[in-house]
């Protein structure tokens, strides 16, 4: 089954909207990703992909506040990261689930998007929503598809 942008959107909606009650509105992707933070998980099987979730620190805090059901400003840095990583974990796991064969999911990795590689190998997908007034971007980075030739190296996740 071909994994497409619509499926990536649906998974994001299931995680953020159906589960957490965060409203998502589709928006065109911005390009100041470098100032954002990223949580990523790696999917390794016949197909090798990385799911990257981008947000700025305000959106990250808002998501964490919803997950911890706590007041604005009351969470630690670590709690905020933890919540954001769990979002990446859920999206990544569900992407993996659609591949139709078993693959392994890495634990989430968190970092700044500063030296994030902007060029996306062929077959990668990207979708952006407006969430709590801030952009939430999800990228499915193709690392190696079984048929396609291997595409350049990628930041280790």
């Amino acid at each position, binding site marked *: *089954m071909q*994994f497409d942008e619509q*499926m990536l959107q*649906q998974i994001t909606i299931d995680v953020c909207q*159906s589960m957490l009650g965060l409203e998502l509105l589709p928006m065109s992707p911005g390009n100041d990703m470098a100032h954002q933070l990223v949580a990523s998980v790696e999917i390794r099987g016949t197909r090798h992909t990385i799911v990257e979730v981008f947000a700025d620190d305000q959106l990250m805090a808002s998501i964490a506040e919803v997950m911890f059901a706590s007041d604005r400003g009351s969470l630690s840095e670590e709690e905020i990261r933890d919540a954001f990583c769990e979002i990446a974990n859920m999206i990544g796991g569900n992407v993996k689930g*659609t591949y*139709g064969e078993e693959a392994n999911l890495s634990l989430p990795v968190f970092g700044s998007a500063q030296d994030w590689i902007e060029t996306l190998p062929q077959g990668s997908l990207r979708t952006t929503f407006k969430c709590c007034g801030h952009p939430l971007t999800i990228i499915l980075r193709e690392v190696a598809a079984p048929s396609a030739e291997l595409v350049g190296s990628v930041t280790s996740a």
Partner: protein
Amino acid sequence: METVDFDYVRDLVRKRSAIVLENEKSYLVESRLQPLARREGFASINELVTKLRVTGFDGLHSRVVEAMTTNETLFFRDLQPFEALRKVILPELIEKRMSARQLRIWCAACSTGQEPYSIAMTIKEHFPQLATWDVKILATDLSTQVLEKARSGSFNQIEINRGLPAPFIVKYFDRQGMNWQLKEPVRQMIEFQPLNLIEAWPPMSSMDIVFIRNVLIYFEVQTKKEILKKVRRLLRPDGVLFLGGAESTFNLDDSFARTEIEKTSVYRPQS
């Protein structure tokens, strides 16, 4: 939404489905009609209703009525009725029908199919001996839209995640991308048909088990009475009726006797 338009829709829905829309529900009507109006190419609800007024009852009217139905359902809803079915009702009926080797089950108002499929999986899983019997599960609903979805046997993860035992997911579903597809042997057990409970019913065989759950709540007392009376006639003398958790035959039809099985109420014809 204008009051006259709301009144028109309320009367239409009442006449065609018996569903009673209270005045306070006008926001609900509006939120459901808005997308329909757009889909059908009308600039506003008002334009849609104007069109309805000047044409005889047709597909558009049906789609408006269908848009007003609540199709909320889940696999093994409330669990206990299915426990009663598995532990008591089916074993009893199988014993009684040993020579005829025939069972007829009707699931009225089946929505997107979770209820009849729950019955079918219960039978497949726990009563393999019925494989050689003549077992039919008839599943009906007013809405052709939900029936189409029910027939497809395809469910999304949110639907699969609600109420469905994990062993059944593994055994009876195939994953296809984002969706979960019920396997053929379970799908084949059910016949889906449109049926409006307030219109004349097509000829049906006598039933051993009838599920008519979470639909009578939308109707007025008189309508409930009429439907229960027809169900009573269709039910075999030793048959069983299941209603929704908030429904009963009390004060509506005293030809049913209520018994408590597995913490749920089931209704049997009084002899």
